[in-house]
């Protein structure tokens, strides 16, 4: 079996992975660092992020304001030490990207421009029109090209983490182009594989978002944290799930029900004003807006469409000029994929699975409890996002915690010896497993797509915007059934060359594991907080649940849970207030 070795191996070539790679190269240029990704790095899902990246840069804004918005937005489940580090380091990280060439939108005087965003009480969201993630990713990727120390494994797919002596020492991966399976050893491994939206049927997430890194860590014995917190975004295009950025509302768009009424005013989010008001109405947090949609649907005030109920996002009053300069991608996406022009027409939208607050449990340095394993970005849960992430916090999170994980992994790798021989026999076993279970498998009668669709339906029905014990228990039973049927999948593809059916099969296995972690975590949290709404336990319960859920996979395949207290530094748990009361409180506080 072929083997290659690196000091630090980063799995995933999106924003977090590339930032981590540069951090390693800069901390210690003698370290041998590699990025392994199942797609070319510039295809990574960071590319789809639209609206912007939050960081305090303007006078009148403060780090404490950003921290408070993040913590209250997260319904007090954020670790406040992590949030403080995050808001502190976000501005310099975004500036660094500016120095690397990111085409940030500018004020007329040449300074960085900022826009409003949901749940933020100051305008602090940097943006590159409405293709912020695209520009950040390409800037990062093109900048990595100047570092000759950064090796890449493009289109390689990791199937397993190699663990011995309670330490992660490498991976087994398939070179997709040739089908070759090999071990890649490393003194430290950083997971930067992003989220798992594809566990659900209707998602903004790209086809590659299968929770790979979460499943790899879970399978290796590392805990997943706060997996019950799944973010729906209020404005997805029906059928495709294409995201219409929150920036459309930040620039002044309205949410309308079937009567053309700005219904959010009925849900404790303030009173409608012609111009956008921060932390109010359309600029409320995502969880509250999605919950309002469901209530509105129950009242029969949404619009029936071929792909479920929708409401309307109205940006017509913003005018063609503003839409073309600030929201060009919104217009492009509506024209190309929905055949409507938002300059003249209403945009049909509905809540869509968008982001995973939970993930591989890490500390403030990106280290997981498993030695040698680090994680950053959406795959990780530090947690700065708590029970509900604020829009425009995920992009700076990639940079801040990508860099932190890179530095911590570099330091750890510098103190470690090469991996041992036991790892190689493990790698050989894994190769044999992949070959026997997938490549040389005969028989079977279950189609991958069938199992995947059943899983997605079970997740939506059981663990959607509103959950109950019985809906979750039903989903858990269905997932168990699917786990049992999984070994009977049938595979049509016998080729070793670019076998995408093989990767789809492994991804399905990953998604079943991640789905299980989401459902089990949601079952155990008998309260409602942020994006986790239990109709059978409608209140937040700080006495029992001001804590992170941890879930572990045991060696026998069963799971067990645990809780970890939330770190509170300066912001004791309070009520989440949006709309007019928030304005009043702000005015009083000066």
């Amino acid at each position, binding site marked *: 079996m072929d083997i290659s070795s690196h000091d630090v191996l980063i799995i995933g070539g999106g924003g977090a992975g590339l930032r981590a790679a540069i951090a390693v190269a800069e901390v210690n240029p003698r370290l041998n660092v590699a990025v392994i990704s199942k797609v070319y790095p510039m295809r990574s899902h960071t*590319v*789809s992020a639209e609206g912007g990246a939050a960081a305090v840069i303007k006078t009148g804004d403060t780090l404490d304001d950003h921290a408070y918005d993040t913590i209250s937005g997260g319904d007090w489940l954020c670790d406040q030490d992590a949030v403080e580090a995050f808001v502190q380091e976000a501005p310099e990280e975004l500036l660094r990207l500016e*120095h690397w060439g990111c085409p940030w939108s500018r004020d007329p005087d040449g300074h960085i421009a900022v826009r409003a965003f949901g749940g933020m009480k100051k305008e602090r969201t940097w943006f590159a029109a409405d293709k912020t993630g695209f520009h950040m990713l390409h800037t990062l990727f093109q900048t990595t090209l100047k570092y000759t120390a950064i090796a890449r494994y493009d289109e390689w797919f990791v199937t397993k983490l190699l663990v011995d002596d309670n330490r992660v020492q490498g991976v087994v991966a398939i070179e997709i182009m040739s089908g070759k399976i090999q071990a890649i050893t490393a003194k430290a491994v950083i997971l930067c594989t992003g989220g798992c939206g594809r566990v659900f049927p209707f998602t903004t997430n*790209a086809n590659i978002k299968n929770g790979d890194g979460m499943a790899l860590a879970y399978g290796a014995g590392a805990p997943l944290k706060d997996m019950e917190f799944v973010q729906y975004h209020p404005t997805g295009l029906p059928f*495709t799930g294409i995201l219409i950025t929150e920036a459309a509302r930040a620039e002044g768009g309205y949410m309308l029900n079937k009567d053309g009424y700005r219904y959010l005013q009925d849900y404790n989010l303030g009173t409608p004003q012609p111009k956008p008001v921060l932390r109010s109405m359309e600029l409320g947090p995502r969880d509250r807006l999605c919950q309002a949609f469901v209530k509105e649907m129950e009242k029969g005030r949404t619009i029936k469409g071929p792909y479920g109920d929708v409401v309307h996002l109205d940006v017509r009053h913003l005018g063609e000029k503003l839409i073309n300069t600030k929201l060009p991608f919104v217009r492009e996406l509506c024209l190309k994929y929905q055949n409507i022009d938002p300059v003249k027409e209403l945009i049909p939208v509905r809540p869509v699975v968008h982001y995973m607050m939970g993930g591989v449990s890490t500390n403030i340095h990106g280290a997981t409890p498993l030695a040698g394993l680090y994680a950053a970005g959406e795959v990780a849960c530090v947690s700065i996002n708590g029970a509900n992430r604020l829009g425009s916090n995920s992009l700076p999170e990639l940079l801040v915690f990508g860099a932190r994980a890179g530095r911590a992994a570099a330091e750890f790798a510098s103190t470690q010896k090469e991996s041992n021989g036991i790892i190689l026999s493990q790698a050989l076993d894994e190769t044999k497993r992949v070959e026997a279970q997938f490549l040389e498998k005969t028989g079977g009668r279950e189609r991958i797509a069938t199992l995947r669709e059943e899983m997605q339906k079970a997740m939506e029905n059981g663990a959607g915007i509103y959950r109950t014990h019985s809906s979750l228990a039903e989903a858990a039973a269905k997932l168990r059934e699917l786990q049992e049927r999984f070994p009977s999948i049938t595979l049509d*593809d016998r080729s070793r*060359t670019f076998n995408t059916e093989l990767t789809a099969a492994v991804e399905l296995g990953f998604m079943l594991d991640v789905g299980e972690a989401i459902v089990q975590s949601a079952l155990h949290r008998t309260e409602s907080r942020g994006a986790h709404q239990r109709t059978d336990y409608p209140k937040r319960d700080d006495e029992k649940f001001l804590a992170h859920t941890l879930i572990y996979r045991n060696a026998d395949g069963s799971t067990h849970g645990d809780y970890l207290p939330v770190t509170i530094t300066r912001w004791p748990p309070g009520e989440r207030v949006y709309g007019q009361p928030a304005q009043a409180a702000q005015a009083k506080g000066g």
Partner: protein
Amino acid sequence: MAETIKLEVTRYAPERHQAPTSQSFEVPYRKDWVVLDALNYIKDNLDGSLSYRWSCRMGICGSCGMMVNGEPKLTCATFLSKYAPGPVRVEPLRYFPVVRDLIIEMTDFMAKLRSVKPWIIREEEKPLSEGEYLQTPEQLDTYKQFSMCINCMLCYAACPVYGLDPLFSGPAAIALAQRYNLDSRDQGAEERMGILSQHAGIWGCTFVGECTRVCPKHVDPAGAIQQYKLTAAKEWFKSLLMPWGAK
């Protein structure tokens, strides 16, 4: 009762085929389906071995470029209805080696991209503590369109010069070099000029403009190449007039 449409899809697996062949599939015809939805229908329901790249399904990741009825297209942004009643011919991008079915080999582009140094080059880096480099919206506009390239490779599949001369850096790489040359923060234009003018490919471009026409992101690589040729010609002319290295 349900309407269908025929797709003729290129199949190739090096272990089994000497050369690419075509296979027909009947898929449901739906007005809101793009070509990629039809391919996914085939993979999920008819033949799991069909191989192609795709990811975001919103025209920004650049993975799903293929030839559709002979034209380079992002299949996620190309509706079946455009080709009704069919058949729809789906082939791998032209001028690239084919790895498998609809998948092309693009390592050549990755090397070319790196060779044009697509990053900010400066003599002196300003410390972060001094804040951002100022750049007015007008300065941003001078390079912005070139920064919109998603590396989807449609322009290479449309470029007759690349088809004849694989050494040609090609439209996207040159557009990205120009993206940095025109950025007010960058000082690397001369360095990049040296790299690009070394190769004859740039002179082979006869300004057919096919690259610009097929670009799904409205980048104008043909314009970038023309700008390059002009600057390179000026440099060459200057070197004749002033052989002692005046700049």
